């Protein structure tokens, strides 16, 4: 199974810019299917970014975030070649993690 996480992390002069796309249904729990049955809530609750053993960014997500979410941010203190570890956990306990090299 291919990773559900796509990363692009590019080190600039001062900060590292990170872009991440995650494949996830992000069902809010308020939508019904074609038969009229409620689709149970199924969404990511936390996304964590770690660089050099430190957490640089944590996102707390809920049902309002869209399907296949995209997140972009920048942080200081990393350089080209460092590892960036990304982990998400959803409300059903499913999780995925990936490590990318900062370019």
């Amino acid at each position, binding site marked *: 199974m*291919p990773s*559900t996480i*796509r990363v*692009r992390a590019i080190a600039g002069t001062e900060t590292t810019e990170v*872009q*991440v*796309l995650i*494949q996830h249904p992000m069902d809010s729990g308020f939508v019904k299917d074609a038969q009229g049955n409620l689709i149970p809530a199924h969404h990511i609750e936390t996304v964590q970014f770690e660089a050099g053993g430190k957490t640089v960014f944590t996102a707390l997500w809920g049902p309002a975030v*869209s*399907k*296949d979410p*995209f997140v972009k941010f920048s942080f200081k203190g990393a350089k080209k070649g460092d590892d960036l570890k990304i982990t998400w956990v959803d409300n059903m306990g499913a999780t995925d993690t990936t490590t990318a090299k900062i370019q």
Partner: protein
Amino acid sequence: MRKIIVFITVMTIFGAQSCLAIESLAPEKDFKAFRGFFIKRFPKVPLDDFVNGPYSMNQDMRKQWIEKEELPPYDFSVDRGKELFSAQFKNGKTFADCFPNKGVGIRQNYPFFDEKKNEVVTLELAINRCLEANGEKPYSYLNDDMAAVTAYMAFTSRGKPFDIKVPNNPRALEAYESGKQYFYQRRGQLNFSCASCHVQNPGERIRGEMLAPALGILNAMPIYRSEWGGMGTISRRFTSCNSQVRATPLEPQDSSYRNLEYYLSYMSNGLPISGPGARP
């Protein structure tokens, strides 16, 4: 009065004769007129840029799109398509056995006119026929796996110009003409034809959306549409266009839709495949 009647008679005879003589040339003539119309209407848009649909018409949207293309939303679908494409069927064969050049870099040759069966064969139809011939269950024509496989096949064909041929065969010309008629025929409660939006009003807004030009519109297929929240095939685009003008959509891959795809693809001959695409 007599003069007029004579005039009309002469016109009719002349009209009928010239019609017979140029019938086989009609697609070529249409092609020139169609492309000429868009070039004249949008002199600032480079020809190859029409395949980028609304992004060729609006700078703001273009900026956002370029940023989006760094991590395109159709990426997951292309990966899934690659997986399905190389997976073995129960009999040990794969999609590569059904297509010329093992299915790589061939998107630009579809749809084609099958002179043995006398029908237009689209890529989506060919994929499902391949599955059926190998004892597999066909895909839904609208999304998911069909979109994934066509996305992967388009991806391997990026940059190759559409190369649709209308053979000099009355049945092929008939299919072409039927597709052309479908394109210009008004339908639905809103009384729109395909051309009402995509020829008369590309670059204009229809509520929050920007209409794409018909020239090059199929080059970007299949597409990830944010409005759909997922991928969609050409079949999905045609059926949803019909619903939007409040007409009853036909079955996906109905011969009318295939003929329409044939006509539209022929009109975009020479423009590069840019699919899979991302649209708002």
